């Protein structure tokens, strides 16, 4: 046996690749909501106007339906979904309350600048049961935000407007720099939406919320430019192992 036999070659370590940080964040949110009792449902990215707008009480006159805000396809026969809410509509039509769904995935808006992309990701949740109140919604949102940003995070609810919820709210958290940052939108499901889904709105009520995955990922990882997520740059992706 020569002396060389005692020399061990350096260890070969196969380095892991990276799951995309947006999908990591999306997965984190879905796991959190699943633990609370929400079931994940899926649906198409190319939607009918009926499911993307009408069923959600978004009237023909709503600015979001205009060609400058929404991508229409195939001679206006369909749209690229502008939110994941139509997935919930499809699921509500197939289920009886109580029900708790999350829908997640890509959504599209006709924007393209340094802070807005034509495609981004949402995670939305809906819970329908008897006696669901705005006070319950606040509790749920607190649970989600405490999990994401710690129990000490300061949370603010502001009135807002979404055709599919009433009352509607936007929720902010106070950043370390003392600035309020918008985090999510939520509200009590508009009874019109429940009725559209053949749910008795006199008996049942619901709460709904939606988070922008990119927004959460940017805050959690400290990425300042949303466009970085979509350059497919291995130097960038390697940081999220």
């Amino acid at each position, binding site marked *: 046996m020569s002396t060389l036999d005692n020399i061990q070659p350096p260890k070969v370590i196969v380095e892991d690749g990276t799951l995309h940080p947006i999908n990591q964040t999306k997965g984190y949110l879905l796991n959190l909501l699943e633990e609370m009792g929400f079931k994940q449902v899926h649906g198409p990215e190319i939607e009918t106007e009926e499911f993307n707008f009408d069923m959600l009480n978004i009237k023909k006159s709503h600015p979001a339906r205009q060609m400058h805000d929404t991508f229409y396809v195939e001679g206006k026969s369909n749209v690229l979904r502008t939110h994941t809410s139509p997935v919930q509509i499809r699921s509500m039509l197939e289920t009886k309350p109580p029900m708790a769904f999350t829908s997640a995935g890509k959504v599209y808006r006709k924007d393209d600048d340094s802070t807005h992309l034509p495609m981004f990701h949402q995670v939305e949740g809906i819970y329908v049961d008897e006696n669901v109140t705005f006070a319950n919604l606040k*509790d749920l949102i607190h649970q989600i935000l405490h999990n994401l940003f710690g129990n000490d995070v300061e949370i603010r609810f502001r009135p807002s407007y979404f055709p599919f919820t009433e009352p509607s709210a936007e929720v902010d958290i106070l950043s370390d720099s003392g600035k309020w940052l918008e985090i999510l939108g939520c509200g009590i499901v508009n009874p019109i939406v429940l009725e559209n889904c053949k749910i008795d709105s006199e008996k049942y009520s619901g709460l709904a919320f939606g988070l922008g995955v990119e927004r959460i990922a940017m805050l959690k990882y400290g990425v300042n430019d949303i466009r970085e997520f979509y350059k497919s740059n291995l130097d960038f992706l390697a940081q*999220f192992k």
Partner: protein
Amino acid sequence: MKLIYQDLLKFLNDKPSKEDLSYKLFQLGHEHEIHGDIFDMELTPNRGDCLSLTGLARELNIFFGMSDGVEIYKDNIENLDINFENLAAEDCLKISFLDIEIQGTTSNYRPYLENYFSILGNNKTNFFTDISNYISYELGQPTHCFNRDSVNSKFTLENKETSCTFKTLLGTEINLAGKNCVFSMNDEIISLAGVMGGASTACNLDTKSALIECAYFNPESIIGKSVKYNLTSDAAHKFERGVDVAAQEKVLRRFVQIVQDHAVIRSIKMKSFSSKEHECISIPIDIVKINGILGTQLNEAQYLSYLEKLGFETNTSIKVPSYRGDIKSQNDLAEEIARVIGYNNIDSVPLKLKKIINNSEIDKASLIESFLVRNGFSEVINFPFTSIKDKCSIVIDNPLDSNRENFRTCIKDSLISNLLYNERRQKDSIKLFEISDIYKKNPDIKQKKILGLIISGRLGNDHINFSKKLDQQYLNQLLNENLDNEYFTVVEIPRIDLDTKKKDKIFYVEIPLDEIPELFFSSLDETDKKLVNFVSYISISEFPSSTRDFSFSITNLSKVNEVIDILENTSDSIIKNSFVFDFYKNEKTETVKLGYRFIFQSDFKTLSDEEINKKVNKIIAPIIQLDGVSIPGM
């Protein structure tokens, strides 16, 4: 909408500070920024009624009390004999006209009017139009001023197919197309209703006689027109969001009052056309329902008191004011109450979901992702838009540009772009994958979840794999080895058509997830998913990197580990990566040859050879001083 703080105070009994005002506006849901004395409001699209001083004052009444700061002309106004016909009654429920003639004109405005222009930076146009613009700011109702002399025969309002050129009062020529709500006279369009008047009937600095039109247009009839014709229109902005359906005559009387504040009126006449009387919405008083929606314990007296202060009548039922087109249901009223109480003042009530549902389905995409990541692949997400069109492509009707007219029908082109992008960034071992829904038209729209993966370059950055290349065999071993068939078809992508000078072969696999056999998934570990760790991101450098390779000859074998330790423990802000790329034991000479690579890159600049060499010398100096360690040729 911009408004002057002092202007708003005129309509409030209390005189809150800017901070107090701001706080309450936020509580009510009216976002804004404050610049000096100007509040720049960003209102939600359902609150057209708040797009004015009086609109916001009505909201703030509950906190600060509202004073009736608007003086209107109260005297009798003669009936106007006007040759007008409303042929668009569905689009315009109510329209009123004021025929007003003055003696002389003035541009010397009283402070309330002058401030609107000087402080908010609005341009003056002419006497009547200036008043019209101010009234829109004060009351939220747009009006349009025709030069009376130019409206001299029968005119109509009609929602009709139009195909002609129209010159706006700003001088812009637009091509009207499709259905538009228009005022016409003698077959000529004189105004694009609710958006902008025409040049042929516009008032000017010399106008002494004007016909003021004041209407309620359905939002649906106006929406999108200003964008379609690229016109910036305050009137359209307000009509799209809904104005007060019953305010037209009051607004015109206010118009008269402001004219009277500035000029001698020679004559005024007014006429209103109403296609349907406004029906006040009535909602039952139901405090149980309101508390049920909010989770509060309000009593009825409190509830009704809040509503009254917001302008609702509360007798046997709740009557919604004409300006609140957004209120139709108990949930709408609940939101009103929540805004007044303050969303943040409503206590949370713990929520426990009754039905806990376990997601028992195996997430195949997730299993594959974990498997690929464990084997060194990085996931990418691409936009689905492409210029490439095939017979199955779904076409975007309104693309962002001509390069993004179609929905992609495969992942390949996106992944090739990603690969070339990373090669240009000096990456020499690339393994990428993407899982995405792909849509095709055939003839109906079909959706499939597709996995695409691409490889090229070195097999690995270590002494075993550095000189080997990622190839077909690698992918076959990774994906097909334990299967009864080659389900994953590996194809080579020729470089000839690609914009690259690299020579490494590119291999690619694309497969629908539902065509991957169960056998493949059964070999994957469901518990293999990594926990998400939200690491702090550090900005990546955009400057080029430089590589330096060293080949050490080690005759004193006891020093091998020491050399490796020194190299592996070398760190510096400009060393981005380092690894052993060669390790060879020469039996004949009893020496070890060690190849080591450093990759240098600065976050701030392109590094010069001199800077890198200086760093290199510092690294290797202690190594080559070791007994029996040398770099041949150095």
